[in-house]
């Protein structure tokens, strides 16, 4: 919990600084906007965080969202799918593609980086091909009110994507931090061999995690599609996987696997979105957007590393004392 506390303090300090310099930060409309972004980005970031805890990586998130976005549009506007069928198909495709990633990684022992990098290229290309590189929207299709509400609506002034994020985060928290599956996931990520020697079916654990990530990506994808209301196959979701990875790492997930928490990922996502907001509000040239993010992530992870090593040293000292007694 200490890790999360550190980055949480960073988040609060940033918020205070921004609101001191530009009080507009605290305007309801700005906060709502911020929460909406946090919601949409947070959902897939949780999935990515889980994958990172397995010791893997998922780079195809942005491309998959573009593919699912254009398919969603085409199913509704061109192929005459019903709304429910289209949503189910979208979620299904997300899960099936990720199942493919998981199987390639666990059954053929391919490296997650390679598998999902190919996914990144392949889904983007596919999205552009099926659309002839044309931007797709949702035109005047009836019955999309609920989906539009999910992306753009509020529940008691709280943006719906944020509400969804909180629900999903709560479920994931229980699964990751309180359930048998979560413990197995950490064990597998930390040391797959020792996990196998403890009788854990590591292959299925990892595969299942990719599928969950695919599902969460699909949910985020639907929200983004209706939030932007048009999906440009070449640009939609570009580099979103990097936002997810950054949020997870900021939140204490280790790329070596076996480490991370849902709360951490949430705070990491929030921090990233506050940073983007800050660049806007403080009149920093938007071309510096990525530079600011890069610098803050670096500092955050660096500070965390320093704290971790201190903590380990303290524990060793404690052991020495007890063994000396």
């Amino acid at each position, binding site marked *: 919990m200490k890790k999360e506390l550190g980055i949480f303090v960073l988040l609060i300090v940033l918020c205070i600084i921004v609101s001191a310099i530009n009080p507009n930060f605290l305007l309801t409309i700005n906060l709502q906007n911020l929460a909406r972004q946090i919601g949409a980005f947070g959902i897939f970031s949780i999935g990515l965080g889980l994958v990172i805890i397995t010791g893997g990586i998922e780079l195809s998130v942005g491309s998959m969202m573009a593919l699912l976005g254009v398919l969603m549009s085409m199913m509704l506007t061109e192929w005459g799918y019903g709304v429910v069928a289209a949503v189910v198909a979208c979620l299904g495709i997300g899960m099936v593609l990720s199942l493919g990633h998981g199987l390639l990684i666990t059954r053929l022992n391919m490296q997650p980086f390679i598998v999902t990098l190919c996914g990144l290229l392949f889904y983007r290309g596919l999205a552009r091909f099926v659309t002839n590189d044309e931007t797709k929207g949702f035109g005047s299709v009836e019955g999309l009110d609920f989906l539009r509400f999910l992306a753009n609506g509020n529940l008691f002034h709280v943006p719906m994507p944020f509400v969804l994020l909180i629900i999903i985060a709560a479920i994931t928290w229980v699964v990751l931090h309180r359930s048998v599956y979560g413990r197995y996931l950490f064990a597998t990520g930390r040391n797959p061999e020792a996990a196998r020697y403890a009788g854990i079916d590591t292959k299925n654990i990892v595969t299942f995690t990719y599928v969950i990530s695919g599902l969460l990506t699909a949910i985020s994808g639907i929200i983004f599609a209706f939030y932007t209301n048009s999906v440009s196959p070449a640009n939609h979701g570009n580099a979103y996987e990097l936002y997810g990875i950054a949020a997870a790492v900021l939140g204490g997930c280790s790329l070596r696997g*076996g480490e991370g928490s849902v709360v951490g990922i949430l705070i990491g996502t929030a921090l990233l979105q506050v940073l983007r907001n800050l660049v806007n509000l403080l009149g920093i040239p938007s071309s510096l957007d990525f530079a600011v993010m890069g610098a803050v992530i670096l500092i955050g992870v660096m500070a965390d590393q320093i704290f971790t090593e201190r903590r380990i040293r303290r524990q060793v000292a404690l052991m020495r004392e007890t063994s000396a007694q």
Partner: protein
Amino acid sequence: MAAQAPLLEMEGISKRFPGVVALDNVSLTVGVGEIVALIGENGAGKSTLMKILGGAISRDSGTVKINGQPAEINSPREASALGIEFIHQELSVLDNLDVAANIFLRREPTTGGVLKLIDRKRIHRESDEILRKLGLGISSRTLLGQLSLAQQQLVEIARALSAGARIIIMDEPTSSLTLTETRRLLELTKELKAENVSIIYISHRMHEVEEIADRAVVLRDGRNAGEIEGSEITHERMVRMMVGRDLKDFFKGAAGSAERAKRDVAFEVRRLRTLRYPSHRISFNVAKGEVLGFAGLVGAGRSEVARALFGVEEALETDVALDGKDLRINDAHDAITNGIYLIPEDRRQSGLIVDFNVRENISLPNLESYSSAKIINFTKETNAARQAIKAINIKTPTPEIRAANLSGGNQQKVVLARWLTFAPRVLIFDEPTRGIDVGAKAEIYQLIRKLASDGVSVIVISSEMEEVLGISDRIAVMHEGRLTGILQREQFSEEAVMRLATGTEG
């Protein structure tokens, strides 16, 4: 070969780590061309002393003299400049480079002026020369990765010689060598001695020390416990000096096997063929309450048998029965469900998740039973861990300590503890006391005996002769994938085991 002025004098060396005194006023002298064995239990301070000599850590007090001159050694590089070279327990060669590149690593002669190109001709010429001298029939162009462990170790020695070593520190050099390779290494140390190279030889293998050492320096609990010279160096004397008691005490209660072995067969391995030795079929059985030892040289295929029985390694053929019931074992989960458990050889890599705490490590395979609806009941889990910690006396202040911070013996107990939360029928120990100090060893032996008397069928794979002779009711011996024989208690002797292990019989 008596020395004029000692080549190395370490005098009154002390080193404190937070909370513990690692070295307390320790002295060590080494003459020119002398082989000095440095022995002691794990944690006696051998490694710390050698790290100070090698410049890896600094001393708190004391002096180091080389040829009578005070020497300050603050880094491995400075040690190397003084002619002190380390042959590590874990090899430190780079297996993606060739032999010559390894021998000259960080000392590459260059040519081509500012371009600093490596003088390849020269390093190969000089490397080949040294290799010939060491009697290593390989080319300096061979990739390290293609050599056996023993050959790689000889390359390390070649590197030390080529760097102009006057003192070579060998830390457990034979721990992963076969018998022939060990012989070759021991011969080599004598040859080096003849060329006035001094050797500090750290080993747990008393026979080797007996054979080659001119003097044995014994450390105990960070202090000098005594020295033994020349022909006085015997197994018994060294062990007594190391531990302050007799080895025989360890195995009290090991006997009484005769009636046990006659009991009903519980665990039957009718046919087993491993991937490594596909042409050999293994079959044996273990009675309830029996300890079956598995002896053999490193690489004889014993661990492969254990891993296949536990389902973590694929086997070509398995026909196994427990209490007359046929078992299908496809993965570790199947083995665990049937009451067959493995305490693997490499506990840090396969046995434990070292970053998990003790509680999490103990509960891992049995997590379902501390959960309802897949949600872990933290109280149940902690209680089970506490119970296990108490039952087999794991030394940890709380169950929340990371397993990485425990000593080797306590880590081994954690691995055992997790299986004791089930009701074990068959327990397979693979090198249960490797890297564990003498005190913890005795406790592990007691646990093994206790489990057997509770009716568990125990298999103990061990490369240590005293261990396998002391703990077993019967000993199965393997040689290159073949089960060459099974000895009854009355047939036990080092010679009998060795004959079967080297394949000279059976």
